[in-house]
């Protein structure tokens, strides 16, 4: 069970944080289709930062269990760097969509095409190969939190095993950010103004809100979160390797955002649901759901009758199937921000 929860969070957290990135942009009135591209860019900058730091031996002496605190600072710093890179990258979208009043869908698509090409170009130059790996070691041995760090080597409780063992600090930082930014969006003056610009920018402008500034803020926050989410994805699910690809997580995050009806709480639920089934599909062969020492899903897949349907392929289909079913029941209430995708024109009423 600990394993399932831990791994579910590994899938859900990047989705959640990047979906929230989408919310910030769309709530301010800009469709951010470029989430995938920004993630790819953020993952690259994060991996490159770690690569450079390792190559210049900045943190070498601190690697290993004894100095885990320093390593966590290293991760936090890299998250910040990846986030800033994402924010800068997203300025391209902001400039095209806000200043030039370009079609936002096309602008986003352009960034999605640009990012992998740009990233691969530089990876080729830096590493002379198609992927940029850590300069030395594995992500887990450098950055993962283990229970032995907290002097809990012998402890075998559910809480310790689930939340303090074999986890990355990024998970908790993202969860915290998710909560804080949701509060920012719903409970502060800034959040209200931002949302107003996505619903009726002319009305917001008539009350003295600078729509341009608000939209820029929305896109920059969005870029920061997506860039950071890209690095979190690379760190937790691909051994800190940047290869111009985040396995479509940016598009999945877009889907999660729509699935979650542009509301943080629903998004968290949608991401967790999706992550849970994704994780079950991948680990069904060792999943002991009811704790009786039997791997139910594996046994079903081996069963001569059930195995025809309930096999690996079916399990892999499940996350998408479940999402579709839930959408069928909830999509009626779905409501996008009214002014999203429409360039702001002060003269229009």
């Amino acid at each position: 069970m600990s394993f399932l929860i831990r791994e579910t969070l590994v899938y859900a957290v990047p989705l959640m944080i990047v979906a929230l990135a989408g919310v910030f942009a769309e709530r301010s009135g800009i469709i951010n289709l470029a989430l995938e591209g920004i993630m790819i860019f953020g993952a690259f900058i994060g991996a490159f930062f770690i690569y450079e730091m390792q190559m210049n031996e900045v943190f070498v002496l601190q690697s290993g269990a004894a100095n885990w605190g320093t390593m966590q600072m290293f991760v936090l710093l890299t998250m910040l760097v990846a986030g800033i890179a994402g924010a800068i990258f997203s300025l391209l979208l902001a400039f095209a969509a806000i200043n030039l009043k370009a079609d936002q869908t096309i602008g986003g698509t352009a960034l999605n095409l640009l990012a992998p090409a740009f990233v691969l170009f530089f990876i080729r130059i830096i590493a002379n190969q198609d992927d940029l790996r850590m300069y030395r070691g594995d992500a887990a041995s450098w950055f993962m939190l283990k229970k032995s760090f907290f002097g809990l080597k012998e402890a075998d409780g559910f809480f310790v095993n689930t939340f303090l063992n074999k986890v990355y600090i990024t998970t908790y930082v993202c969860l915290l950010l998710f909560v804080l930014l949701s509060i920012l969006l719903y409970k502060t003056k800034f959040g209200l103004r931002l949302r107003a610009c996505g619903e009726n920018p002319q009305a917001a402008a008539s009350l003295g809100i600078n729509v341009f500034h608000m939209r820029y803020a929305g896109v920059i926050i969005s870029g920061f979160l997506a860039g950071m989410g890209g690095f979190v994805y690379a760190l937790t699910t691909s051994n800190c390797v940047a290869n111009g690809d985040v396995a479509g997580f940016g598009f999945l995050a877009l889907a999660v955002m729509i699935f979650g009806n542009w509301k943080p709480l629903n998004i968290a639920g949608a991401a967790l649901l999706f992550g849970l089934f994704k994780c079950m599909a991948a680990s069904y062969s060792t999943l002991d759901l009811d704790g009786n020492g039997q791997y139910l899903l594996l046994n079903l897949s081996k069963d001569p009758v059930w195995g025809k349907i309930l096999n690996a392929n079916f399990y892999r289909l499940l996350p998408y199937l479940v999402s579709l079913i839930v959408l069928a029941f909830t999509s009626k209430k779905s409501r996008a921000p009214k002014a999203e995708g429409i360039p702001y024109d002060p003269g229009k009423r």
Partner: protein
Amino acid sequence: MKKIIALALSLLMVFAIVACTAAPANSGSDKYEIAMVTDVGALMDKSFNQGTWEGCEAYAKEHGLTYKYYQPANGSEATDDDRYDAMKAAVQGGAKVIVTPGFLQGNALEKAAKEFPEVKFIFIDGWSMGLDNVSGIAYKEEQSGYLAGYAAVMEGYTKLGFCGGGGGTNPACCRYGYGFVQGAEAAAEAKGVDVEIKYTWQYGASFSASPELQTMVGGWYEKGTEIVFSAGGSIFNSITAAAAANDAKVIGVDVDQSYESDTVVTSALKGLTASVKWALAKVYDGTWAEISGANSASLGAESDAVGLPTATWSLKNWTVAEYEALLASIKSGAVVVDNTLLEADAIAAQPFKHVTIQYV
């Protein structure tokens, strides 16, 4: 004003494009005699492509020849046409020998070899196709896998895993897997222990790393699997990530991967670099006919093309002397490793005495 700038810029662009396309045609001196067309995955994959490339590089440098690599378009999704285009580009680039690792290149290679009979092709992991300008070089991966499986069990591991690339259709990976199981069985027999092996082809079909594979293998380690044999290029990344999280171990493949990750105990080698050099030498010393056309090479222990890297392994309970003895008995034919290409569930159904295979 704007129009003039736009005009100037577009002229510049046109000029740049012309300059780019024209450049290679003009520079006749830039001919590359030895070419390599890569298999799926990165050139520097620290595995299959890289081993081949290092062979080309070493031979070319020793003999003062020019060399270059060509990557088919579309990466892991490269089609036969993409591969053929890369080979054609190599020929146009002046290649006299083209080294093509990976059995997936077969169709493209056949087309290219028929079209350019004056160019010699070295087909690693392949067959000669009866063409006089093609030399197929296959390996006895089952022997290498056997050694790895034997070593793992002798070292004291009893819960093993195998992750293969190519989705179960790549002959080399299939031989690695079956050899691994046979080696584990033999060692379990010798030690009198029972061994469990989890065996899968899932998620490695395109030889690339994936979060799902990492989760799956993470689940294995979590439930007691101690060491996993990663037989498939970049899937190595996902497996070491899972192993590092669980303080568990990995067996590398093709080349010595112990430099890649601290989790690697040993690697099932195939002497790519050495045999590429060996085959290239045959191109230039006039003995090409020995390995081309109707002849092709299948290199195993007897030609030192398979083995484990004793210098860098971190095995403690199984000594180099014991390894040498086992290798010698494979060489002499006293130990024969079956190389039948079996489907994974057919392997699971084999009557092993000490090994239980759980096919995932």
